[in-house]
């Protein structure tokens, strides 16, 4: 067949060329005038079929003639169903393709890869979506793996541990991205201390157990709580037979319900700057409110958004202003998020540091213009036509049709909800748009979140409201003292800690300390073992040595400079020095028994709040040094011994197994965290206090 077509094409091309050479050129078109369109095409909402399996699973089928078949199951719940265990919905989704009770993770990957298919799941605020895709001719293999993953996921301890480890690592790099921080800062502001508002942290990840994942799956993955959409070249009868067989063993109780979320009240302007010192751009979010999917305002809000910062072209107002007129940014845009718990309007732009305030001003100006002036007729009409056109084009994609059919069911929308959209768009007036702008984008209710370099941008933002600066953990920087929450001042907590550690006087009597330990670190699946030694002398001299066999580091701190000697493999040792201001910062926090000298060192203390750290209920005290900045002590709320220390400089440590040495308490199990996800364990620790130390110990290579 293809030969015939090629010949035909070549033949017709010849004719055309002949025609154009032997005849005068075609009539000149009037180039000055935009061509008139042909009569508009009719777009019907594409047909689909629906049926229910014996186990109650509702199925939608959208047929096409393509060789690929796709499955998408929606399971109600998602993040909103997490309760107190942040991230559990993500774990339940992300581990779904990591093997089943009868097929190992490796075999599962091997089987689906072999047929060129993919299976995966993601969780969102209100649901978990599980998808499979592949060639129709491999439907048997794909469907077997897909249903097995949904019904019998293994959630093995081994895969869970690997996953948690990876997520902790991933979190560190995610926090280096402005967009990630902007997303979660917005969430924290809008959803507060609910599952939707919490940024995952290392602690939450570590608290996830296999049983919690299994329980979550058991509760939410039931047929009555799910729908399945299928797109492909398959008949209803064939599909029904295959699904009844693949999901025959899927039973389950009644549909669970999501408990209501207690969201923080939105009142007044909030202006948050999340400080990212390395940022060369500011990521700006201006946040209003909006309609849910079921709100009658929803369709017309699309027109409002098209004019302001959405639509399919570059003609919207935010782009014209910020990109084309001012060159502030590459791609500003806005959208209404019909989040069922708290719908929002979000306008966003990434701009260079120096124009952050100017860009915010222009964004607020454009939003204000939507409220204060009706949209001119031609601009309104253009955006209405655009919305209708987008709808026309969207019906060409069966996957979109399938997801719409599922949305109708999920959100209990009228059956003709999508089919009616063009009519509603067409009837939208300038007054409608202005009314929606006033309702959802009121000036004093707009929140602003900016991720950027606070030292360069924060001052100039004061014109827009009270600037609150957050750190990369989304905690207020130098912010409020939470003494009231715990019923103690920071100093009182600190004094209790000093008492628990043996008392301030006793601690200050320590003039030197030697510590030796065995050290173990995980490297991939193997464990590296080595030796650790530290010698300290008052006030702040120290020597540290870590010998892991393949690498050895020594650090000599004589109170003025720091010199490091690093030897790796057989290579000649390298020397590194810390001097000047960096050394001054370093020495601030390396005082011997530093807890007993906070006043001498000019440290300020602040209560951050209560938090579970390593499964211990802790009080967190922010410890701020004059030069090196803020660190955190997480102190056991019962024993008042430190559980974890995150110093202003240097690596975090987790401390346990406290015992007395000559009347002062020291930890006999220490875990050092050089990087998130990496751990070094100190064991067989020995301490020796107040031995005379030779000065040469600290100055060998100074």
């Amino acid at each position: 067949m293809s030969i015939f077509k090629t010949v035909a094409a070549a033949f017709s091309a010849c004719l055309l060329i002949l025609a154009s050479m032997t005849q005068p050129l075609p009539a000149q078109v009037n180039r000055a005038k935009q061509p008139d369109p042909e009569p508009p095409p009719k777009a019907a909402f594409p047909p689909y079929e629906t049926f229910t399996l014996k186990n109650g699973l509702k199925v939608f089928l959208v047929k096409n003639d393509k060789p690929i078949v796709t499955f998408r199951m929606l399971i109600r719940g998602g993040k909103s169903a997490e309760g107190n265990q942040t991230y559990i919905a993500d774990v339940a989704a992300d581990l779904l393709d990591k093997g089943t009770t009868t097929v190992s993770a490796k075999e599962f990957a091997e089987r689906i890869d072999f047929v060129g298919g993919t299976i995966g799941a993601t969780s969102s605020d209100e649901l978990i979506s599980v998808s499979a895709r592949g060639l129709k001719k491999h439907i048997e293999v794909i469907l077997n793996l897909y249903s097995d993953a949904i019904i019998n996921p293994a959630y093995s301890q081994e895969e869970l541990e690997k996953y948690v480890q990876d997520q902790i690592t991933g979190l560190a790099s995610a926090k280096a991205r402005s967009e990630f921080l902007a997303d979660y800062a917005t969430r924290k502001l809008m959803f507060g201390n609910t599952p939707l508002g919490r940024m995952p942290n290392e602690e939450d990840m570590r608290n996830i157990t296999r049983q919690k994942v299994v329980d979550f799956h058991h509760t939410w993955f039931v047929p009555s709580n799910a729908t399945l959409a299928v797109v492909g070249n398959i008949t209803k009868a064939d599909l029904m037979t295959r699904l009844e067989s693949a999901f025959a063993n899927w039973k389950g109780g009644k549909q669970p319900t999501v408990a209501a979320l207690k969201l923080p009240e939105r009142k007044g302007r909030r202006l948050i700057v999340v400080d990212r010192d390395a940022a060369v751009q500011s990521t700006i979010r201006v946040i209003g409110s909006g309609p849910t999917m079921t709100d009658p305002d929803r369709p017309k809000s699309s027109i409002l958004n098209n004019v302001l910062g959405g639509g399919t072209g570059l003609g919207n107002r935010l782009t014209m202003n910020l990109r084309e007129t001012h060159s502030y940014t590459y791609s500003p845009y806005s959208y209404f998020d019909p989040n069922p718990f708290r719908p929002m309007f979000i306008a966003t732009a990434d701009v260079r540091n120096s124009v952050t305030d100017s860009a915010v001003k222009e964004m607020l100006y454009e939003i204000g213009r939507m409220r204060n002036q009706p949209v001119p007729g031609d601009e309104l009409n253009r955006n209405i036509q655009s919305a209708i056109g987008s709808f026309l084009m969207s019906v060409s994609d069966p996957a979109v049709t399938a997801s719409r059919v599922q949305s109708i069911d999920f959100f209990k929308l009228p059956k003709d909800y999508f089919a009616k959209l063009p009519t509603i768009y067409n009837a939208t007036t300038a007054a409608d748009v202005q009314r929606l702008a006033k309702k959802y984008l009121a000036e004093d209710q707009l929140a602003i979140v900016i991720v950027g370099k606070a030292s360069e941008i924060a001052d100039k933002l004061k014109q827009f409201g009270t600037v609150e600066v957050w750190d990369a953990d989304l905690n207020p920087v130098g912010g409020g003292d939470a003494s009231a929450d715990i019923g103690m001042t920071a100093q009182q907590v600190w004094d209790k800690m000093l008492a628990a550690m043996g008392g301030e006087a006793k601690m200050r009597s320590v003039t030197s300390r030697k510590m030796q330990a065995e050290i173990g670190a995980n490297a991939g699946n193997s464990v590296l073992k080595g030796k650790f030694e530290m010698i300290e002398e008052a006030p702040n001299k120290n020597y540290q040595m870590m010998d892991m066999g393949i690498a050895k580091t020594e650090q000599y701190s004589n109170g003025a400079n720091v010199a490091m000697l690093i030897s790796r493999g057989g290579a000649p040792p390298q020397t590194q020095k810390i001097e000047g201001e960096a050394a001054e910062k370093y020495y601030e926090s390396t005082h011997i028994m530093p807890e007993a000298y906070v006043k001498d060192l000019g440290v300020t203390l602040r209560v951050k709040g209560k938090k579970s750290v390593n499964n211990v209920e802790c009080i967190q005290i922010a410890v701020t040094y004059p030069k090196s900045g803020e660190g955190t002590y997480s102190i056991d709320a019962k024993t008042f011994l430190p559980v974890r220390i995150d110093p202003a400089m240097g690596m975090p440590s987790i401390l346990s197994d406290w015992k007395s040495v000559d009347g002062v308490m020291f930890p006999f199990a220490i875990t050092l965290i050089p990087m998130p996800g990496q751990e070094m364990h100190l064991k067989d620790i020995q301490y020796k206090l107040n031995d005379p130390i030779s000065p040469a110990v600290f100055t060998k290579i100074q």
Partner: protein
Amino acid sequence: MLHHIGKRCAAIAGVSLAATALAVNTGIAAGDLPKLAYEKFTLPNGLRVILSVDKSAPVVSTFVHYHVGSKNERPDRTGFAHFFEHLMFEGTANIQRHTLDKLVQSAGGNLNAFTSNDETGYQINLPSNQLKLALWIESERMMHARVEEIGVETQRGVVKEERKNRYDNTPYGSLLANIFANVAKGTPYEWTPIGEAQYIDQAGIEEFRDFYKKYYVPNNAVLAIVGDIDLAKTKQWVMEYFSDIPRGADIERPKVTLQTGQGERTVDVREPHTPLPALVYAYPGAQKGDPDAYALEILSTVLASGQSSRLYKDMVDEKRLAVGAQSLVFDMESAGVIGFFAVAHPTTTMDALGEEFDRQIELVKENGVTEKEFQKARNQIETQFAGRFNEPLDKAMALASYETYFNNPELVNTEIDKYMAVTREDLQRVARKYFAKENRVIIQYYPGAQGG
């Protein structure tokens, strides 16, 4: 629920993966996959036109493929082709400045564009009754685009922000620039399409006009139209709008040969926003259409496509050396680059990543791949190509690209044969041929301060 809009234009380096094609599953004929029917003709001014009917929805897509990319730039004017892509949205003799987008939007459509090392492509999607609008806009842009100071000035700022956004502020955003700067050193593939900002600042308005006159001519372009169209009417309209655009001078195509045999080189990159160390091995590969390019693509599928692939299974899953590992295949018009990229797990070292790369490469060189791996990769590629035509625009882009690079749109149906022709032995052969230590560039990303 979040959708990104208005992200027009993507300066992509090295056209990349998936030149296109499909491979065939064991015992099942390639004829399984539906054939794409089309018609092709050429106007007297040299414009090649390809039409294909797709009645799945009342929409039409046009794609104008100009055979000019960053490799056509002067070394002291990099970024020119991509900058031009932005200028082409400024307006034309008959289309007012800043109205081009609005025209398409008002008609219910959308438009976009991209630039790579070899090409610049312009896309318009519209309801099918608005096809003439797309033809008018594209013929206007080909005939007399506005190349004016005011537009140049605006787009200078926009492109700088794009650069910051996509490359300077993104972890590993400089990856491709570093690979090409080293593997393609001394050739026009040395720089990536985004180019260096200062050259656009240095260029005068005449230089922009000369670039337009030289490359934005009908004999350097292919127009593909796919959708719910009437073939006879469409041909008539194409002739009306495009026939009176004058042909330009013939264009000399740069010949590129990547240097080999100059010994292994190591480049360290320290950037403040690098979250974890990462390692790249890169080598000269095979150019688009070279039989070896198909073999390299299948080999890279074996090595890094899916959770059962070698790199994922060993480096990410079992040994926990990397948080992610992938192979890199760039098949450009006149050269290729192939390599590996892994981001280190926090508990591992750069050396351990390198040792594992070395081990994997030696394994393939010594033992080739298993029959099962070979079949799996072919199945994966078959699925990839069976699923590539979701929208009319996908078809238009494939047809135009085959015409531009091979003068043969029929490859849309037959490139499968080239994948089919690759044998298991070829995979071992290309591994030995291309993964040569003396051609290797090693790029090491470390978290840290700039420069360093």
